[in-house]
């Protein structure tokens, strides 16, 4: 479904990602792990074309994403829930959700999306007429995920949906992500908490200093101490063969 090949990207002269290759298969949940500043968000933003690509390719169901402007991605079936939710604070929950369906969305698509959103997060229905900026942190994150689903994407990128949430909210969002995946949406997930991320995903990539240093099935990674080593930098990037990425 999504294939990132030897991607190098960054900000102007500041290169952040070096030769990163990852893939997400149909129906998969893939976790992106790594210490703060290791380039997880940069990778996700490069996939959705918000960060400049220096080299490499990004393909999504055969489409060369790296040739498209960011506002074209929604239509090919990719949706990105940005870090820190990025709702439009001076618009209502309903308006945020409507926008999620994309420009020119049919009434039917919006209606279907709203029903799905309210089924997933019932409290959004109660808050529909409230300004998004007035919601609690957890509700905002829920609204952002629901907004990301409005366009009925085939792949959802979610950047740290649990940050600042109460344990109760975490459980609710975790359950929602599971249900979204069960409905056939592939998910690429960034999450700081290693055990949580590994428990939720089929496979995982560990980034360090802008390179993939470890990858494998989440269950295997959860068992050993390799992830810990990778975080601490005791795993040399050279030891992680590029073939592992595919």
């Amino acid at each position, binding site marked *: 479904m999504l294939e990132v090949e030897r991607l190098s990207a960054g900000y102007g002269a500041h290169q952040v990602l070096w030769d990163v290759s990852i893939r997400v298969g149909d129906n998969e949940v893939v976790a992106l792990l790594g210490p703060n500043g290791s380039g997880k968000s940069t990778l996700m933003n490069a996939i959705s074309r918000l960060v400049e690509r220096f080299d490499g390719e990004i393909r999504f169901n055969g489409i060369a994403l790296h040739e498209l402007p*960011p506002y074209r991605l929604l239509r090919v079936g990719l949706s990105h829930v940005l870090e820190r939710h990025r709702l439009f604070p001076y618009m209502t929950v309903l308006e945020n959700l409507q*926008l999620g369906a994309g420009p020119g969305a049919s009434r039917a698509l919006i209606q279907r999306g709203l029903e799905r959103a309210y089924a997933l997060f019932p409290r959004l229905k109660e808050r529909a007429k409230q300004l998004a900026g007035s919601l609690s942190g957890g509700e905002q994150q829920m609204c952002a995920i629901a907004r990301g689903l409005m366009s009925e994407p085939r792949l959802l990128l979610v950047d740290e949906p649990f940050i600042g949430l109460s344990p109760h909210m975490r459980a609710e969002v975790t359950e929602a992500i599971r249900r979204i995946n069960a409905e056939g949406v592939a998910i690429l997930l960034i999450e700081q908490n290693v055990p949580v991320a590994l428990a939720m995903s089929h496979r995982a990539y560990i980034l360090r200093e802008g390179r993939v240093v470890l990858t494998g099935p989440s269950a295997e990674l959860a068992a050993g101490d390799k992830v810990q080593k990778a975080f601490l930098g005791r795993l040399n990037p050279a030891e992680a063969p590029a073939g592992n990425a595919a």
Partner: protein
Amino acid sequence: MSDQLIAQLVVSGLGMGFIFALIAIGLTLIYGVMEVVNFAHGEFLMIGMYASYLAYVTWGADPVVSLPFIALLMFVFGVAVYYLLIRRVLTGSMHAQIFATFGLMVFLQAAAQFFMGADYFAIQNSWLSGVITIGDVVLPMPQIAAVVGASLATLLLYALVFRTSLGRQLRAAAQDAQAASTLGINPSTMYALAWGFGSACVGVAASLLSNFYYVFPRVGAVFVLLAYVAVALGGFGSIHGALVAGLLIGLLQVAMGFFVSSELKFVPVYMLYLAVVLLRPRGLFGRM
């Protein structure tokens, strides 16, 4: 003090107020969506007024008839200014943006002077000239037209911005362009539309104004300074704020001009402005 006098003052205050408001709404719409101040905004007004005057003397088209066409013309002009000039300096420094619209102002004034000369032109005997008599109250027709026309235009703009899908996209791009782009919205298209709609507002104001005000190359400065005050008073980027502040300024200057002295008519406006800037720098209202 008679009812008739009060009615006249209110009507001419609101007439000017709605004109200020419409100019200010155009300005604040552009600023609200992309945080660029259009220093050539007054010159857009000037172009609209010349267009209205020329349509009248060339084809005999009354301002009432030419109004929608002038709004359309200014819409296209605004979009063109965005694509040909503003888009090119967006990635540059703040100074580049200021000098771009400031340079446009100087250029448009010089161009008007070159093509039309420095003379004052006015439309004589338009349909909306003269007065209207209701009972024993005599009211100036052009000001009433300004109130009616500008409030209709404002209503239309409100409906567009706050009730349509396109308006939602505009506000989304205004609040977070990057997040908007992940939702399929091309921010550049929204910026172009903001310039288009903002300029169309000025076009409507220009057309209404041409019923009772003369046009000359520097006419923009007369009105746009107060529109800037209205924008700052109302809060940069706030459409509600620009509307309320524009009306307030219109009424205030007419009242001051009548009761005290017409030389001092702008004094309370600027005093109010200073008070708001000192006590509540972000203006009366927040962002759009």
